[in-house]
């Protein structure tokens, strides 16, 4: 417990629409340790982007926190951030303790605002000295391999890869302990993807950020930097495991299917062949009863239709939500 | 398909209000002259009379019945509006679609023409043509108006179709051996149908307003009565200064009501056809 940075207990967050609720995050429990990289992987619509908003308490209607608690370690003690409102969390912790790089952030920059303005804005909102902060940013720009003169440029003058690096440089300027990156590489070409991963890891190595949560659909990318991996399916965690063990022997049938559908240029992949999971992900307004994966599962048993499998630890550090391992509980 | 497109319109309050007002005037134009059988051009000795049982809306300087004039005026104004709108729609659709489908030199030429028409002050040209023609029938006025209000429409549908043309279903239809004409009718026209429908409403509006404008400066139809011509006569005889409200208020109000109802209809259609999220 002493080196836990963030802890989530039975988190539930729904999109409350007029008549129905979309259960995008439905009972997630996990913790993020200090000094680690965790990958959150799942297909589109599994609730992984919603999870990033929930961690930040970025609850914008119709997204509502229905239940559960989030604790964040701040200066050695835990704060229950789920008890605070969005504005309080924003004022106290955003940028300083945790920061996010949202999906396609690099394309969300206003083309008419110079990069410098963003830093000044940050200084204003946190009551810091703008000059000092800009000097710090210049230093950070050098560290992520950008020219310092680019701080005075407009976003449209930079290429996609440069913009993404500028975003990460500015958003980590206050040395937050937790960095959440939501699909940071999907809009970049592969060469820039790799550069970006390098920047991410160098930030961690320098101690600028302590832990990173990388949210993506691409297991091969996560595999490069993550220590542990969370696999999500239909708003739930189906497996949580250290990465090497997970790749060695995936436990949950969904994880196995997902791994076997990955195509990377490697001889092992050719030997293994490609697997398809039949059917399509369920809609989260009215998810299937019991285990949400049962309609597509090759090992479906009767109990899967009725009862929901709990996420239990069956090996040290490995948790899986599947009745196939019901007898192996440790 | 057409019905499912139209249905949601009748759930929109704005549309219902605008549409009802328009229908009322349409009926007045159609049925008014049928039931109120007074010759609007017949001169009597009851001149410049305020409304009375024998002349419900009074008479003008020549003793002509205003109500009869109004019914005939609405009829021809609407007729001019529709005619001008059809002409504009046909020209606009033809040029816009041809530009988008053929591209290259055809596109460059057609767009050059469109831009020339778009940037020439059309009312000026209309005045020139109208004053050159000594005798102007209602149809000629409609034609003059129709010839000048299509360019923005042609450009808009060209832009729309250009983006549709880059969609893959168009490529798939081409690969299924469709001719340009079949492609236009099956894949392209449906995508611009709602937009064309809206534009048509605005074109009618433009036709009615244009006619009123031309008539007011004495270049309207030389035969027949329109709302614009009624206003012109009222202005010539200084009806406003002399306080003969029954002469200029009815046609003025009709023009405002018709054009306003058309504008409301087109904004309502915009709301219904382009919702941010179409839930089906």
């Amino acid at each position, binding site marked *: 417990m002493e080196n836990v940075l963030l802890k989530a207990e039975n988190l539930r967050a729904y999109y409350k629409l007029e008549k129905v609720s979309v259960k995008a995050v439905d009972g997630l429990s996990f913790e993020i340790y200090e000094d680690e990289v965790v990958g959150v992987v799942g297909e589109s619509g599994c609730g992984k982007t919603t999870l990033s908003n929930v961690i930040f308490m970025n609850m914008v209607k119709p997204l509502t926190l229905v239940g559960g608690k989030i604790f964040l370690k701040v200066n050695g003690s835990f704060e229950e951030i789920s008890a605070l409102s969005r504005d309080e969390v924003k004022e106290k912790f955003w940028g300083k303790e945790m920061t996010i790089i949202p999906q396609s952030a690099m394309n969300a920059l206003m083309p008419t605002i110079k990069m410098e303005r963003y830093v000044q804005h940050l200084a204003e909102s946190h009551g810091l000295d703008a000059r000092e902060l800009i000097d710090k940013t210049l230093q950070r720009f050098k560290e992520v391999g950008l020219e310092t003169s680019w701080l005075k440029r407009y976003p449209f003058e930079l290429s996609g890869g440069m913009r993404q690096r500028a975003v990460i440089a500015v958003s980590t300027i206050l040395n937050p302990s937790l960095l959440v990156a939501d699909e940071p590489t999907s809009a970049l070409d592969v060469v820039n993807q790799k550069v970006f991963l390098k920047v991410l890891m160098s930030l961690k190595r320098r101690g600028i950020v302590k832990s990173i949560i990388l949210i993506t659909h691409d297991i091969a990318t996560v595999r490069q930097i993550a220590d542990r991996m969370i696999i999500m399916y239909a708003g739930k965690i189906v497996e949580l495991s250290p990465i090497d063990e997970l790749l060695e022997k995936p436990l949950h049938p969904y994880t196995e299917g997902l791994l076997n559908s990955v195509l990377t240029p490697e001889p092992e992949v050719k030997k293994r062949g490609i697997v398809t999971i039949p059917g399509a992900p369920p809609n989260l307004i009215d998810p299937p009863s019991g285990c949400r994966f049962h309609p597509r599962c090759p090992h479906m048993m009767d109990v899967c239709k009725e009862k929901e499998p709990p996420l239990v630890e069956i090996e040290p550090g490995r948790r899986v939500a599947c009745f196939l391992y019901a007898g192996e509980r440790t | 398909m057409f019905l499912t497109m139209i249905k949601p319109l009748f759930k929109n309050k704005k549309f219902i209000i605008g549409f009802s007002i328009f229908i009322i005037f349409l009926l007045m134009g159609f049925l008014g002259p049928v039931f109120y059988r007074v010759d609007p051009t017949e001169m009597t000795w009851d001149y410049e009379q305020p409304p009375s049982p024998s002349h419900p809306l009074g008479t003008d300087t020549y003793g002509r019945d205003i109500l009869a004039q109004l019914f005939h005026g609405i009829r021809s104004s609407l007729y001019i509006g529709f005619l001008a709108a059809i002409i504009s729609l046909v020209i606009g659709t033809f040029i816009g679609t041809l530009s988008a489908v053929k591209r290259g030199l055809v596109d460059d030429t057609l767009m050059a023409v469109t831009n020339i028409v778009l940037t020439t002050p059309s009312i000026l040209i209309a005045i020139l043509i109208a004053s050159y023609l000594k005798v102007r029938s209602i149809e000629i006025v409609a034609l003059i108006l129709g010839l000048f209000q299509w360019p923005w429409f042609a450009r808009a549908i060209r832009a729309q179709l250009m983006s549709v043309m880059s969609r893959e279903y168009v490529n798939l*239809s081409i690969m299924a051996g469709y001719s340009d004409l079949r492609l236009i009718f099956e894949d392209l026209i449906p995508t611009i149908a709602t937009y064309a429908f809206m534009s048509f409403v605005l074109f009618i509006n433009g036709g009615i307003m244009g006619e009123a404008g031309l008539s007011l400066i004495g270049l309207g139809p030389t035969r027949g009565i329109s709302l614009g011509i009624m206003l012109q006569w009222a202005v010539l005889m200084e009806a406003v200064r002399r306080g003969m409200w029954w002469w200029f208020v009815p046609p003025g109000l009709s023009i405002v009501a018709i054009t306003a109802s058309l504008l409301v209809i087109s904004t309502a259609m915009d709301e219904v056809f382009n919702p941010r999220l179409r839930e089906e």
Partner: protein
Amino acid sequence: MSRLVVKNLTKIFTLGFFSKRYVEAVKNVSFEVKEREIVSLVGESGSGKTTTARMILRLLRPTSGTIHFEGTDIWNDLNDKESLKDFRRKVHAVFQDPFASYNPFYPVERTLWQAINLLENTPSNKKEAIELIKESLFRVGLDPKDILGKYPHQISGGQKQRIMIARCWILRPLLIVADEPTSMIDASSRGGIIKLLEELREKEGTSIIFITHDLGLAYYVSDTIYVMKNGEIVERGDPDSVVLNPSHSYTKLLVGSIPKLYRKMEDI
């Protein structure tokens, strides 16, 4: 004889009306596709791979160079309607975006009716045609009950892409150009699409050109890989030699940058 021979293909786009700028999208590209062969054109966006595909599909006229399909120059020798229709029958495509592949105004089976009307031996009556449509849907693992009469927004991206392949089953073309057919559908449905295309090759001897940015996909499915960069082919070869033993500096960079599943990059 090769099924498709592309020789010195070049496409220059002209931009602007008065001050003209020229963009060379495809430069001097030559390659061949044999019977039953799966060829991949791999490149990042802007490499000219999609432009090449459009020229092969006879959707975009090349600036220079020739494309011969079964010995016929497709841009110069297809002058009458019949021979053009024959070409359309024999060369077909599956596109990237399943949502843009269907006209939202029509039920999804319209795309299958288009294929039936293109056939040489059109079914004699409607009942026979519907049977053919149903059979093609079964072939791609779809239940006609779930598909017929539906509009595009009512079915999933994976299903849409399968219907596109059903269209190919009806036509049984000699060559399919698949332009990023799996990039916009979920990972778990991706394998099915690839398998269906491979099945077409096995049963009908169809040649397939994959246009893709995904070297992993190209490595998995192809017999020959062509790597494109800035409109030019920079490397060609069988998958193992291109991926495991690249010779051009760009391919080396590309292979080195792609994240792998079973090995970790050492320089991160």
